[in-house]
């Protein structure tokens, strides 16, 4: 989108946040969103949301908002995990399997362990899965798509070994704490999503590691030349993605009140679709958190919208695909048209 803007990004080892005043706004505001490709998905979400509320004003009632957010929060979290891997120039085919595995670990451990321990175990499993991929990609130098293809088979089989059919010990209390009406006015799952997203945003935008993650994806050579440990950064990015995915898995287990060894499968393709819709570059280095969350919300709620509009909700698959191609493709076409227009003028 911003071909003419300085290809500056983000390899500033020293946090530039020290600079105050206009520079601060410049680096946090619209400019950054534009640079990260998030304008189109945000606009798409706003349009989508307005249409949704016009068709179904009931969305803003407590119950419907809660149902809708329980539906999209797991997808949003998994998409954030996928985003982190995409930011370092990789892709995670195993993300659905990681999600299934964390989901069943969480659900089965709840049967006989206290809740915090089960949460820690699930997060630990997500971290371990991410690090497994990360070591093979960063240190063994293998292509991410092939490594995660292999680990998709491996993690998936372990998940079904842990729990071979839907079940587990997720309780009503956990449902209430993650997906119910714990806090006034807002569905609690949205609160959890916001907390995780803000922490992740701080990590990516305000710490050295986060800037390195963006840097490794946008220009591996410069990052190496700057003396940053690119391999370690990649490894940590995969690990972080695993952790975020495990949060998505636990939210899914809690909102459905079951552990299911195949629950993550549909999230493989939809997480990649959400990251694509968010305007992230699959070559790495470009992609925004807010764009990804809103893209996930758009994709996750299309089915609901069609239901309320009285359209056969199978259309959601067709419409999602068209939205992705349109939102990702229009800037490309626009750039090309602008290029030709410029050429014709001169």
């Amino acid at each position, binding site marked *: 989108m911003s071909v003419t803007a300085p290809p500056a990004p983000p390899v500033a080892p020293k946090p530039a946040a020290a600079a105050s005043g206009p520079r601060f706004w410049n680096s946090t505001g619209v400019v950054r969103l534009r640079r990260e490709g998030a304008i189109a998905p945000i606009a798409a979400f706003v349009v989508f949301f307005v249409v949704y509320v016009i068709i179904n004003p009931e969305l803003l009632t407590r119950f419907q908002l809660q149902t809708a957010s329980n539906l999209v929060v797991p997808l949003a979290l998994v998409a954030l995990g996928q985003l982190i891997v995409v930011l370092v120039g990789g892709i995670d085919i195993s993300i659905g399997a990681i999600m299934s595995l964390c989901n069943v670990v969480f659900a089965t451990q709840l049967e006989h362990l206290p809740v915090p321990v089960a949460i820690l175990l699930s997060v630990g499993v997500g971290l371990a899965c991410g690090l497994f991929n990360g070591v093979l990609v960063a240190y063994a130098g293998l292509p991410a798509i*092939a490594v995660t*293809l*292999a680990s998709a*088979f491996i993690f*998936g089989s*372990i998940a079904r070994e842990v729990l071979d059919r839907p079940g587990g010990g997720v309780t009503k209390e956990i449902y209430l704490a993650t997906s119910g009406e714990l806090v006034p006015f807002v569905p609690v799952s949205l609160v959890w999503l916001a907390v995780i997203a803000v922490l992740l945003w701080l990590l990516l935008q305000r710490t050295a590691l986060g800037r390195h993650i963006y840097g490794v994806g946008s220009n591996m050579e410069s990052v190496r030349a700057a003396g940053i440990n690119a391999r370690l950064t990649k490894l940590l990015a995969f690990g972080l993605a695993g952790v975020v995915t495990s949060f998505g898995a636990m939210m899914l287990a809690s909102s459905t009140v079951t552990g299911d060894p195949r629950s993550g499968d549909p999230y493989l393709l939809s997480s990649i*679709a959400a990251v694509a819709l968010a305007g992230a570059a699959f070559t790495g280095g470009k992609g925004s958190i807010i764009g990804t969350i809103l893209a996930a919300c758009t994709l996750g709620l299309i089915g609901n919208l069609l239901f309320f509009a009285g359209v056969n909700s199978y259309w959601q698959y067709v419409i999602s695909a068209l939205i*992705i191609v349109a939102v990702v493709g229009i800037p490309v076409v626009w750039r090309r048209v602008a290029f030709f227009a410029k050429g014709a003028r001169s």
Partner: protein
Amino acid sequence: MTTPGTSAPDTVGTPASTGPLGTAPGVDTSPAGIDRAEGVGGSAPESPRGSHASFLSRVPRSVWPLLAFLVLFGIGGIIRPNLITIDSLIGTATFAIILAIASFGQTIAVIQAGIDLSVPNTIGFSALAFLTLVGPLGPVGAFVAALAAGAVIGFFNGVVISKLGLTPIVTTIAMNGLLFGVILLAFNFSELTVTPDFVIAITSAKISVFGISMAAVLPLGLALMVVLQLVLSFTGWGRSLFVVGSAAETARLAGLPVDRIRITGYMLSGLLAAFAGIVIVGYYQQASATMGASYLLASVAAVVVGGASIFGGRGSVVGTVGGALVLGQVSTLVTVLNLGANIQQLIYGAIILIVISLYGRRRAA
């Protein structure tokens, strides 16, 4: 080094490597590009010093998965001597050839540095379209129409990828989703129960080849493999697919119509996936909306185990058949030893890891 017992694939695999390129017009100006394209069929790109390494690197890559299959077959025989029979071989090969047919399209997509994640629902769409159209169009008309539908799907993939510049992964995922919607909206599943005899005759019907009884899909798949390998190895279009896959920019500078090659590549990929859909319907004699789902990862797995580079420019359909045979033999062994489907998936993952750690590093570094 040639492996006895796999004579048919071998005779195809060897010329693929020893008789490279040569006739692809218009690319003579780019030695680097050609060099790498030559590596495609088999011989490694770097010039080895030791004669031993030189010999090994000259063995076409597609031989290794076939060799691995024979080793696994032998291991099976050591564990259970009654597994070394023609029937057992035919059984595994039949299972494998169906996976291979579903992976041929994926192979074409991967060779040109793409990937086709719309294979699952292209399979489902073509199968259901075929069954729906058999009534009005007759079996042959429906067959042609379903294949044409696959080519059209591939055409749209190719146009979006090469003209709009979207990533192949995203494009084909979007196409996969779109097709799923179309499948659910367009077809009336309750009516689609009768599989026409014509398809059964070319897939699940038992025929006798050299006195050995086998399902018709096996010779069909092997014949398709031979045809595709000849196209890939000895036609200008086939060679240009490798050039585009290994160095698209070089190919463009050398005057190759890169976009057109990409689009036709995806068309062939879609057409082959559609063919796989019809074959699967014929063999299993059932069709459903999600019938292709298991081929999403399995097709990529067969291609990778078959020695193709996930970055493009390297791969062969013979290798893909070898990869499918390896996966099929693992499945047979797991079933015989009663280890369960989970262990099978675990071994699939381990095999992919082994294969990519043997092959995958050269261009990743």
